[in-house]
């Protein structure tokens, strides 16, 4: 018997759509696409602990690839009077986290049991959020620096956190490009002077940003500082630091 | 298969006070099969100069013959014994000649300078990249174990007997963790006017 031409099968074959409406196997070889990279993103942030508090510092650029898409965007978040957060990486994911923290803070407030975030508890909670996201292979594309004053131990707290959920504490922290450029400088400062005071820490933080600005095209000299001391967290307004490019005139061989 | 893991074997050398020692294991394999348990990989290049060549055995034998030829010519032309430093340069340049089709051997050299009796050890990779400022040199399939043991057990100014004991412990315990090495070991302790060669037993599995 001659083979009967089935117009439906032919159409479906050409369209490569099986009857149940799902994409055919050749299409579903890559199943579900999650976020596979950052979009608008912030570059390095840094943190330094001093004798009775911590400083976080970040510039204010939101980059889209190599494009400086947003010049002034806040990358430091005051969570409460003891706790601040600095972000680098995908800005949209940070905004999601920001809302998440806001909701959780309201829930804590409504409990009216006197509990609120401490830097340590925020660090731990954020680690869980990032770890759970990575475990679903749907990561939040951020690195964070969590800082503040731990009232329970009466000591400053400073910690870092990567997108995979690797968290750690250190008297100096930097993310991304800052790990190469800012962290060695900060380590040197802290080791020379373990009893750093606030003023020196601020100068060191700003200078670390300056070092980054000289070498990292994604950064700018517009920056914000957050300073936390006992019962006082301040995210300062956006400022600009001085830079010197006169030595650039002496560079030869690249023109 | 990786040519370094085909025949298997290790070499290690150490500096002592006015002496050096060099050792190798005895196993010769063909993959997981042990072909011989009497196959040391250290070769004599002069009265106080030895080279260990773990790696692909066919290349080791070729390299050792070529080197012996070059050393003989050198010593005839110069009418003096070759210095370990010079020999190292000779091995390096010979290996680097084959930069894009190397002999699959790592080299460990140990010797005393014929004029000053200064101890000398070095190790180099297939391309002849060597390091001369270390008190010990390792190569072969148990490289990491040897290195860790040397770091932990070596101390400065070891007398010949202590150097022998230290080096024995190093090679013994390293090859115990290496499936591709072992089956005994030979240790040469080189002093000003004598070389003491001893064979030690290790696990045979």
């Amino acid at each position, binding site marked *: 018997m001659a083979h009967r031409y089935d117009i439906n099968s032919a159409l479906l074959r050409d369209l490569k759509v099986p009857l149940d409406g799902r994409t055919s196997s050749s299409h579903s070889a890559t199943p579900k696409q999650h976020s*596979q990279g950052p979009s608008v993103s912030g570059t390095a942030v840094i943190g330094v602990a001093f004798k009775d508090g911590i400083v976080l510092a970040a510039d204010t650029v939101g980059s889209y690839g190599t494009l400086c898409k947003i010049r002034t965007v806040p990358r430091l978040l005051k969570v409460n009077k003891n706790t601040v957060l600095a972000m680098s990486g995908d800005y949209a994911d940070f905004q999601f986290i920001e809302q998440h923290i806001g909701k959780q803070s309201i829930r804590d407030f409504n409990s009216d049991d006197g509990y609120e975030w401490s830097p340590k508890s925020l660090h731990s909670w954020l*680690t869980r959020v990032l770890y759970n996201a990575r475990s679903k292979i749907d990561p939040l594309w951020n690195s964070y620096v969590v800082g503040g004053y731990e009232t329970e131990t009466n000591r400053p707290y400073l910690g870092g956190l990567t997108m*995979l959920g690797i968290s750690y504490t*250190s008297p100096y922290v930097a993310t991304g490009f800052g*790990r190469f450029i800012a962290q060695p400088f900060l380590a040197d400062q802290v080791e020379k002077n373990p009893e750093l005071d606030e003023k020196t820490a601020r100068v060191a933080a700003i200078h670390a940003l300056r070092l980054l600005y000289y070498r990292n095209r994604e950064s700018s000299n517009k920056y914000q500082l957050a300073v936390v001391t006992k019962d006082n967290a301040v995210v300062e307004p956006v400022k600009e630091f001085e830079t010197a490019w006169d030595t650039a005139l002496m560079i030869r061989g690249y023109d | 298969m990786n040519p370094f893991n085909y025949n298997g074997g290790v070499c290690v050398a150490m500096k002592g006070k006015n002496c050096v020692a060099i050792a190798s294991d005895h196993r010769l394999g063909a993959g997981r099969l042990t072909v011989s348990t009497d196959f040391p990989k250290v070769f004599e290049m002069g009265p106080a100069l030895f080279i260990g060549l773990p790696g692909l055995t066919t290349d080791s034998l070729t390299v050792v013959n070529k080197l012996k030829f070059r050393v003989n010519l050198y010593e005839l032309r110069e009418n003096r014994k070759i210095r370990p430093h010079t020999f190292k340069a000779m091995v390096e340049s010979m290996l680097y000649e084959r930069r894009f089709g190397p002999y699959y051997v790592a080299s460990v050299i140990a010797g005393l300078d014929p004029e000053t009796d200064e101890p000398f050890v070095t190790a180099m990779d297939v391309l002849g990249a060597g390091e001369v400022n270390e008190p010990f040199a390792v190569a072969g399939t148990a490289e990491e174990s040897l*290195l860790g043991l040397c770091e*932990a057990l070596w101390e400065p100014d070891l007398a010949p007997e202590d150097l022998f004991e230290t080096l024995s412990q190093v090679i*013994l315990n390293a090859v*115990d963790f290496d499936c591709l090495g072992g089956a005994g070991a030979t240790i040469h302790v080189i002093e000003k006017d004598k070389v003491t060669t001893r064979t030690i037993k290790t696990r045979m599995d």
Partner: protein
Amino acid sequence: MGDFSPYDDNGGTVAAIAGQDYVLIACDSRLSTGSTILSRFTPKIYPLSKMTVFACSGFHADVLTLIKNLEVRMKLFIHEHGEEMSTKAVMALMLPTLYGRRFFPFYVRPIVAGLDRDGKGLVASYDPVGTPEFFDYVIQGSGENLVHPFLHNQIGAKRTLSDVPVQAPPGLTLDKAVKLLKDAFLAAAERDVYTGDTVTLVAMTAKGTETMEYQLRRD
């Protein structure tokens, strides 16, 4: 883009020795990713109870998660039984905890060390999916290959030709064990780039716990 990996290797070395009346645990404090150092101040030993500690190298996020799981289970145990879990019970708990993630494993190399009810030292080590092994001494992590033969030489094997016999664990005093592990970490830090900064030694006896810290190479 497009090549996201949920795993990382943060390096580091952990070791433990079980004595007749003590247990000694050691770790370095370097946390690295690729060729960069995240922190020089992150020891890999975590106290679980008065009698038991946990030490772990591998992927740090998984280590932290594993610790959280264990802490929860141990707290539940206290509420249920009115006493802390014994070291042997913690060792038994590791297998289901790790095997529960058989198809998305924790990328970790854990050691559980502690004292049993008679004050005798116990050490167990596990592979990432929970296979347990019980040892007198153990070393795991990035410096493992360098230092394991050394510990085997000094503790496990009776191989010296000299008159003084190497002390096997029954004769191995705590002081000697501390010296051995210190030497082991100095050797590892010398040649393993992922091990360094400080070595932390925790000595547990029936009398209590003592923590010692020594500087290692920082390069």
